[in-house]
């Protein structure tokens, strides 16, 4: 193996004479190994995209095509029957609106609170910091299902942390709306929030302290330094976190089914749940048709995320590579 030739390709900058034809042995080895990598990657990409392509094809099959075993992927007659029906059952546009509101609000609140908390952990050595950070790790490691029941009970018989109990014995049931989501987001113990705190803390630890000192000398307070100097630096990282929070909230089923089950505010994840049992035992809704509907439902849920990912992808990948978890 001509390692001397090969190494710079691994990690060094691109060779300037990439397209000059020098067919020596090392070049051949590199070409072959690159080709091999391409084959593996294409295979895996196919594996990832195949379910979506399959569902997209199935979506356009007409009802008769779905019953016809000779038809697969390519429809005999194109039809939007499945799509229209699925959108009707899922009440798509309303749910899309609800999900968008819920995800946006949660993502923004979670990012803000996590950034604040992470900055505190990264830059201030207050007493009990280690213990509190152990708390963050504890929230990260304990499966949320453990506190699922008691959390639900807490919000069903909610008394504002005992404040309300001072005045009256009555408690409020706030599980029928987005209040639990807001509370959990603001206090940064929502869905996967510990992970965000951890990532942002690593990021803030990497920023030079000189920025902070300069701000202090120029007369900023602690929060002034944070909002005027640290936040602008952290924007790419925060966009990454917003993307994470937004898309995980978008597909989240755990908190949604916990708090919004009986609410009129139905996000897409609950509608998709509903779709899976819709038409069970009904003659018109055959196995194939129901399966096609669930497939279409998945596509409908994922489609907006797809579009957002298309635009935010750069932030998503770079934000983590540049500043993230490593350190």
């Amino acid at each position, binding site marked *: 193996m001509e390692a001397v030739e090969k190494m710079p390709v691994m990690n060094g900058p691109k060779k300037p004479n990439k397209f000059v034809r020098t067919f020596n042995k090392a070049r051949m080895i590199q070409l072959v190994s690159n080709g091999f990598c391409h084959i593996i990657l294409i295979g895996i990409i196919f594996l990832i995209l195949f379910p979506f392509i*399959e569902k997209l094809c199935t979506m356009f099959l007409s009802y008769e095509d779905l019953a016809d075993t000779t038809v697969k992927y390519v429809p005999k007659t194109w039809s939007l029957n499945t799509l229209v029906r699925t959108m009707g059952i899922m009440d798509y546009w309303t749910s899309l609106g609800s999900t968008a509101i819920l995800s946006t609000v949660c993502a923004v609140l979670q990012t803000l609170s996590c950034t604040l908390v992470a900055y505190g952990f990264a830059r201030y050595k207050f*007493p009990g910091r280690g213990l509190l950070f152990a708390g963050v790790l504890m929230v990260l490691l304990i499966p949320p299902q453990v506190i699922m029941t008691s959390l639900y009970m807490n919000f069903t018989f909610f008394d504002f942390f005992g404040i309300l109990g001072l005045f009256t014995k009555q408690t409020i049931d706030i599980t029928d709306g987005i209040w639990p989501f807001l509370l959990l987001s603001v206090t940064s113990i929502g869905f996967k929030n510990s992970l965000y705190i951890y990532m942002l803390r690593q990021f803030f630890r990497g920023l030079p302290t000189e920025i902070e000192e300069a701000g202090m000398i120029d007369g900023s307070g602690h929060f002034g330094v944070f909002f005027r100097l640290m936040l602008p630096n952290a924007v790419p990282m925060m966009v990454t976190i917003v993307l994470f929070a937004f898309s995980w909230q978008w597909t989240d089923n755990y908190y949604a089914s916990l708090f919004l089950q009986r609410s009129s505010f139905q996000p897409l994840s609950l509608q998709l749940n509903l779709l899976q049992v819709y038409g069970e035992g009904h003659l018109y809704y055959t196995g194939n048709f129901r399966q096609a509907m669930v497939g279409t439902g998945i596509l409908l849920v994922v489609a907006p995320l797809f579009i957002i990912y298309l635009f935010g992808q750069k932030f998503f990948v770079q934000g983590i590579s540049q500043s993230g978890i490593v350190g």
Partner: protein
Amino acid sequence: MADTTTKTALSDKEALNHSQTKKIRKNRGLDLTTRRNLMGYWFVLPFIIGLFFIYIPALVEAFRFSMSTIVMEEGTYRLESVGWALYHESLFVDPDFFRGIVESIGSMFLNVVIIIIYALIMATILNRNLAAKGFYRAILFLPVIVATGIVANAENFTITTSGVSDIESGSAAIAGGVFSEFDIELLLMSLNFNDTLTGIVVSAIGNLYSIVTCSGVQLIIFLAGLQSISPAIYESATVEGATWWESFWKITIPMISPLILVNAVYTIVDSFTQYGNQVMDGIYKLISAGDYAIASAQSFVYLAVVGVFIAIVVPIINKFVFYENK
């Protein structure tokens, strides 16, 4: 972190020389560093509230549930203590629970190993200077965004229903539709591989789709780690005559070994809590049936098992981790 300490110590010294320091000292009776550090509480306040007013009470409450029967009353609920009975019941009476735990540990152990190896290989490949590598990265991270939560759940639904209703058309599982596991099993058998190894490889291939979709975050972490290794190290190794293979084992692996630990813990937690996990499904079912108390007991047993598992695995991996600063 060491950096911050020296910096604050420095600014402290500078401040002491300053004439204003006396004033500040009089104000609070605390020196500047302590006063500065106490500001940290304001930043961490949201989490403090969340932890002490929502999370820990919920955790304690969940533990109390697991020790009692819950009696619903108008506007509130009452707990009647039954001691460790529910734990006893779930561990020794319930036929599915204990078996489920053992099985999920077994499958998880295999998953962790396979996912870490896969993520490491893919990260190494993605770190090469390939054409269209941005495109490859974008697609490989796509599952992190779209194949989570309810989507993964519904995906399971389509696979299982198609397995039942659609056997003759042969699209039982996604990977199964692409190629057949049996071919590979036969190939390995004919190569005289031993049975356990064949079983592991075949099950890995069967789970290929779930491995690919579950390893997005791990892949990102490894890729970030690979990019943070200075190319100078590789260069000097090459000058000394190391081959690619040698520098992979002697440089790459030690340098990213802390991340192997991070990824292992992440994968363990993830696979313990993901959809389709036998024990979690059981707990879900209990909750939707209204058996909150026994569901709590089971989740605490499960939590203890996960904790013990992590406590065993982490020190073992930690032994092989290379820390630069040590």
